Protein backbone atom coordinates (compact mmCIF):
# COMPACT_ATOMS: atom_id res chain seq x y z
CA UNK A 1 0.00 0.00 0.00
CA UNK A 2 2.80 2.41 0.93
CA UNK A 3 4.58 1.48 -2.26
CA UNK A 4 1.46 2.16 -4.30
CA UNK A 5 1.18 5.66 -2.82
CA UNK A 6 4.88 6.33 -3.30
CA UNK A 7 4.73 5.13 -6.89
CA UNK A 8 1.80 7.38 -7.69
CA UNK A 9 3.28 10.48 -6.04
CA UNK A 10 6.77 9.91 -7.44
CA UNK A 11 5.44 9.29 -10.96
CA UNK A 12 3.35 12.43 -11.01
CA UNK A 13 6.16 14.51 -9.46
CA UNK A 14 8.68 13.36 -12.09
CA UNK A 15 6.20 13.89 -14.94
CA UNK A 16 5.16 17.38 -13.87
CA UNK A 17 8.79 18.36 -13.23
CA UNK A 18 9.56 17.56 -16.86
CA UNK A 19 6.43 19.42 -17.96
CA UNK A 20 7.49 22.56 -16.04
CA UNK A 21 10.67 22.70 -18.09
CA UNK A 22 9.23 21.51 -21.40
CA UNK A 23 6.07 23.61 -21.76
CA UNK A 24 6.46 26.82 -23.74
CA UNK A 25 3.81 28.95 -22.10
CA UNK A 26 4.85 30.16 -18.60
CA UNK A 27 1.24 29.91 -17.39
CA UNK A 28 1.11 26.20 -18.23
CA UNK A 29 4.52 25.74 -16.59
CA UNK A 30 3.22 27.38 -13.43
CA UNK A 31 0.11 25.18 -13.42
CA UNK A 32 2.26 22.05 -13.82
CA UNK A 33 4.30 23.30 -10.86
CA UNK A 34 1.06 23.63 -8.89
CA UNK A 35 0.28 19.94 -9.49
CA UNK A 36 3.85 19.11 -8.44
CA UNK A 37 3.46 21.04 -5.18
CA UNK A 38 0.26 19.16 -4.34
CA UNK A 39 1.91 15.80 -4.89
CA UNK A 40 5.00 16.78 -2.90
CA UNK A 41 2.62 17.64 -0.05
CA UNK A 42 1.09 14.17 -0.40
CA UNK A 43 4.56 12.66 -0.21
CA UNK A 44 5.17 14.61 3.00
CA UNK A 45 2.00 13.13 4.51
CA UNK A 46 3.24 9.60 3.76
CA UNK A 47 6.52 10.58 5.46
CA UNK A 48 4.70 11.62 8.66
CA UNK A 49 5.38 15.32 8.16
CA UNK A 50 1.79 16.56 8.26
CA UNK A 51 2.63 20.08 9.37
CA UNK A 52 5.04 20.53 6.48
CA UNK A 53 2.42 19.22 4.06
CA UNK A 54 0.01 21.92 5.23
CA UNK A 55 2.71 24.59 5.05
CA UNK A 56 3.69 23.39 1.58
CA UNK A 57 0.13 23.84 0.35
CA UNK A 58 -0.39 27.20 2.04
CA UNK A 59 2.95 28.83 1.26
CA UNK A 60 3.99 27.24 -2.03
CA UNK A 61 0.70 26.52 -3.74
CA UNK A 62 -1.16 29.38 -2.08
CA UNK A 63 1.29 32.26 -1.98
CA UNK A 64 4.34 31.69 -4.16
CA UNK A 65 2.52 30.29 -7.18
CA UNK A 66 -0.15 32.97 -7.09
CA UNK A 67 2.66 35.53 -7.10
CA UNK A 68 4.11 33.86 -10.20
CA UNK A 69 0.79 33.79 -12.01
CA UNK A 70 0.16 37.39 -11.04
CA UNK A 71 3.46 38.50 -12.55
CA UNK A 72 2.94 36.40 -15.71
CA UNK A 73 -0.46 38.00 -16.23
CA UNK A 74 0.89 41.45 -15.38
CA UNK A 75 3.68 41.31 -17.93
CA UNK A 76 1.41 40.13 -20.76
CA UNK A 77 4.08 38.06 -22.45
CA UNK A 78 4.28 37.38 -26.10
CA UNK A 79 4.74 33.78 -27.22
CA UNK A 80 8.32 34.12 -28.36
CA UNK A 81 10.02 31.85 -25.91
CA UNK A 82 12.29 29.28 -27.43
CA UNK A 83 15.06 27.18 -25.98
CA UNK A 84 18.41 28.69 -25.29
CA UNK A 85 21.28 28.10 -27.69
CA UNK A 86 23.22 27.22 -24.54
CA UNK A 87 21.88 23.67 -24.70
CA UNK A 88 25.38 22.33 -25.40
CA UNK A 89 26.52 23.64 -22.02
CA UNK A 90 23.42 22.09 -20.48
CA UNK A 91 24.23 18.74 -22.05
CA UNK A 92 27.86 19.02 -20.96
CA UNK A 93 26.82 19.62 -17.35
CA UNK A 94 23.89 17.23 -17.15
CA UNK A 95 25.03 14.16 -19.08
CA UNK A 96 27.90 13.47 -16.62
CA UNK A 97 25.50 14.03 -13.73
CA UNK A 98 23.04 11.60 -15.28
CA UNK A 99 25.77 9.00 -15.88
CA UNK A 100 27.00 9.38 -12.32
CA UNK A 101 23.47 8.93 -11.12
CA UNK A 102 23.03 5.76 -13.16
CA UNK A 103 26.36 4.35 -11.95
CA UNK A 104 25.41 5.00 -8.36
CA UNK A 105 22.04 3.45 -8.99
CA UNK A 106 23.54 0.32 -10.53
CA UNK A 107 26.27 -0.04 -7.92
CA UNK A 108 24.25 0.36 -4.78
CA UNK A 109 21.48 -1.87 -3.66
CA UNK A 110 18.83 -0.87 -1.22
CA UNK A 111 19.66 1.06 1.95
CA UNK A 112 19.07 -0.78 5.23
CA UNK A 113 15.77 -0.29 6.91
CA UNK A 114 15.61 2.12 9.83
CA UNK A 115 15.65 0.61 13.26
CA UNK A 116 12.23 0.21 14.84
CA UNK A 117 11.07 3.16 16.87
CA UNK A 118 11.41 3.31 20.59
CA UNK A 119 8.37 4.27 22.66
CA UNK A 120 9.68 7.78 23.20
CA UNK A 121 10.16 8.35 19.47
CA UNK A 122 6.73 6.99 18.67
CA UNK A 123 5.26 9.45 21.12
CA UNK A 124 7.21 12.29 19.47
CA UNK A 125 6.16 11.19 15.99
CA UNK A 126 2.49 11.09 16.91
CA UNK A 127 2.36 14.87 17.34
CA UNK A 128 4.29 16.25 14.43
CA UNK A 129 3.35 19.91 14.83
CA UNK A 130 4.28 20.01 18.50
CA UNK A 131 7.59 18.28 17.85
CA UNK A 132 8.47 20.77 15.10
CA UNK A 133 7.49 23.68 17.32
CA UNK A 134 9.57 22.42 20.21
CA UNK A 135 12.62 21.89 18.02
CA UNK A 136 12.16 25.22 16.26
CA UNK A 137 11.92 27.27 19.42
CA UNK A 138 14.67 25.55 21.39
CA UNK A 139 17.50 24.27 19.20
CA UNK A 140 16.85 26.49 16.20
CA UNK A 141 15.70 29.69 17.89
CA UNK A 142 18.47 31.90 16.51
CA UNK A 143 18.08 30.70 12.89
CA UNK A 144 14.36 31.33 13.29
CA UNK A 145 15.02 34.97 14.17
CA UNK A 146 17.44 35.27 11.25
CA UNK A 147 14.74 33.88 8.93
CA UNK A 148 12.35 36.61 10.06
CA UNK A 149 15.04 39.18 9.27
CA UNK A 150 15.47 37.64 5.78
CA UNK A 151 11.75 38.00 5.17
CA UNK A 152 11.83 41.66 6.27
CA UNK A 153 14.79 42.41 3.98
CA UNK A 154 13.10 40.61 1.06
CA UNK A 155 9.90 42.60 1.61
CA UNK A 156 11.70 45.95 1.62
CA UNK A 157 13.89 44.92 -1.30
CA UNK A 158 10.93 43.82 -3.42
CA UNK A 159 9.14 47.12 -2.78
CA UNK A 160 12.25 49.17 -3.65
CA UNK A 161 13.00 47.15 -6.80
CA UNK A 162 9.49 47.15 -8.20
CA UNK A 163 8.82 50.80 -7.41
CA UNK A 164 8.53 53.00 -10.48
CA UNK A 165 11.04 55.82 -11.11
CA UNK A 166 13.06 55.36 -7.98
CA UNK A 167 15.50 58.22 -7.50
CA UNK A 168 13.69 60.61 -9.81
CA UNK A 169 10.70 61.21 -7.63
CA UNK A 170 11.54 64.89 -7.25
CA UNK A 171 11.11 65.64 -10.93
CA UNK A 172 7.67 66.57 -12.19
Amino acid sequence: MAQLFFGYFAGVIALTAVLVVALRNPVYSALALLVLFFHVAGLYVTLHAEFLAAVQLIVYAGAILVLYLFVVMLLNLKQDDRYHHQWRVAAFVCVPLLLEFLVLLAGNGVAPQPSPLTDEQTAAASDNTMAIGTTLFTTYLFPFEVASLILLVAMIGAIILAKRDIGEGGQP
Partner: protein
Amino acid sequence: MTIPISYYLILSAIVFLTGVVGVLIRRNIIAILLSIELMLNATNINFVAFSEYLQDMGGQVFVFFALTVAAAEVAVGLAIIIALHRAKDSINIEEFNLLKW
Protein backbone atom coordinates in the same frame (compact mmCIF):
# COMPACT_ATOMS: atom_id res chain seq x y z
CA MET B 1 6.36 -2.37 4.33
CA THR B 2 8.17 0.95 4.15
CA ILE B 3 9.83 2.59 1.20
CA PRO B 4 13.66 2.45 1.17
CA ILE B 5 15.36 5.82 1.40
CA SER B 6 17.16 5.27 -1.89
CA TYR B 7 13.85 5.65 -3.75
CA TYR B 8 13.41 9.11 -2.29
CA LEU B 9 16.97 9.99 -3.25
CA ILE B 10 16.33 8.84 -6.83
CA LEU B 11 13.14 10.90 -7.06
CA SER B 12 14.91 13.92 -5.63
CA ALA B 13 17.82 13.52 -8.04
CA ILE B 14 15.44 13.34 -11.01
CA VAL B 15 13.60 16.50 -9.98
CA PHE B 16 16.86 18.32 -9.23
CA LEU B 17 18.37 17.37 -12.62
CA THR B 18 15.21 18.57 -14.34
CA GLY B 19 15.59 21.89 -12.55
CA VAL B 20 19.24 22.22 -13.59
CA VAL B 21 18.35 21.50 -17.21
CA GLY B 22 15.53 24.05 -17.03
CA VAL B 23 17.82 26.77 -15.69
CA LEU B 24 20.35 26.10 -18.43
CA ILE B 25 18.15 25.76 -21.50
CA ARG B 26 15.17 28.09 -20.99
CA ARG B 27 15.31 31.68 -22.16
CA ASN B 28 12.30 33.00 -20.32
CA ILE B 29 13.35 34.40 -16.93
CA ILE B 30 10.10 33.29 -15.30
CA ALA B 31 10.68 29.72 -16.47
CA ILE B 32 14.18 29.90 -14.98
CA LEU B 33 12.76 30.97 -11.60
CA LEU B 34 10.23 28.11 -11.79
CA SER B 35 13.11 25.69 -12.39
CA ILE B 36 14.86 27.05 -9.28
CA GLU B 37 11.67 26.23 -7.37
CA LEU B 38 11.94 22.68 -8.70
CA MET B 39 15.46 22.38 -7.29
CA LEU B 40 14.39 23.73 -3.91
CA ASN B 41 11.57 21.19 -3.77
CA ALA B 42 13.98 18.37 -4.61
CA THR B 43 16.16 19.30 -1.64
CA ASN B 44 13.08 19.53 0.57
CA ILE B 45 12.05 15.98 -0.38
CA ASN B 46 15.54 14.83 0.62
CA PHE B 47 15.35 16.65 3.94
CA VAL B 48 11.98 15.18 4.87
CA ALA B 49 12.96 11.66 3.79
CA PHE B 50 16.10 11.74 5.92
CA SER B 51 14.18 13.27 8.80
CA GLU B 52 11.84 10.28 8.72
CA TYR B 53 14.67 7.81 8.20
CA LEU B 54 16.88 9.09 11.03
CA GLN B 55 13.96 10.06 13.30
CA ASP B 56 15.35 13.57 13.67
CA MET B 57 13.16 16.66 13.64
CA GLY B 58 16.02 18.85 12.43
CA GLY B 59 15.35 17.92 8.81
CA GLN B 60 11.78 19.17 8.92
CA VAL B 61 12.90 22.39 10.59
CA PHE B 62 15.36 22.93 7.78
CA VAL B 63 12.58 22.48 5.24
CA PHE B 64 10.83 25.27 7.09
CA PHE B 65 13.88 27.52 6.65
CA ALA B 66 14.20 26.54 2.99
CA LEU B 67 10.57 27.57 2.53
CA THR B 68 11.32 30.97 4.07
CA VAL B 69 14.28 31.50 1.78
CA ALA B 70 12.23 30.38 -1.22
CA ALA B 71 9.53 32.92 -0.41
CA ALA B 72 12.13 35.68 -0.10
CA GLU B 73 13.79 34.57 -3.34
CA VAL B 74 10.52 34.62 -5.24
CA ALA B 75 9.57 38.08 -3.96
CA VAL B 76 12.93 39.63 -4.86
CA GLY B 77 13.24 37.69 -8.12
CA LEU B 78 9.85 38.73 -9.40
CA ALA B 79 10.53 42.34 -8.41
CA ILE B 80 13.76 42.19 -10.44
CA ILE B 81 11.82 40.71 -13.39
CA ILE B 82 9.30 43.53 -13.24
CA ALA B 83 12.12 46.11 -13.15
CA LEU B 84 13.86 44.41 -16.09
CA HIS B 85 10.65 44.24 -18.09
CA ARG B 86 10.12 47.93 -17.46
CA ALA B 87 13.64 48.75 -18.62
CA LYS B 88 13.84 46.59 -21.76
CA ASP B 89 10.25 45.53 -22.47
CA SER B 90 11.29 41.89 -22.64
CA ILE B 91 12.03 39.02 -20.30
CA ASN B 92 14.18 37.06 -22.70
CA ILE B 93 17.42 36.27 -20.89
CA GLU B 94 19.53 36.92 -24.00
CA GLU B 95 18.49 40.58 -24.05
CA PHE B 96 20.21 41.25 -20.76
CA ASN B 97 23.98 41.54 -20.99
CA LEU B 98 24.46 44.65 -18.88
CA LEU B 99 26.89 42.95 -16.52
CA LYS B 100 28.80 41.13 -19.26
CA TRP B 101 32.26 42.50 -19.94
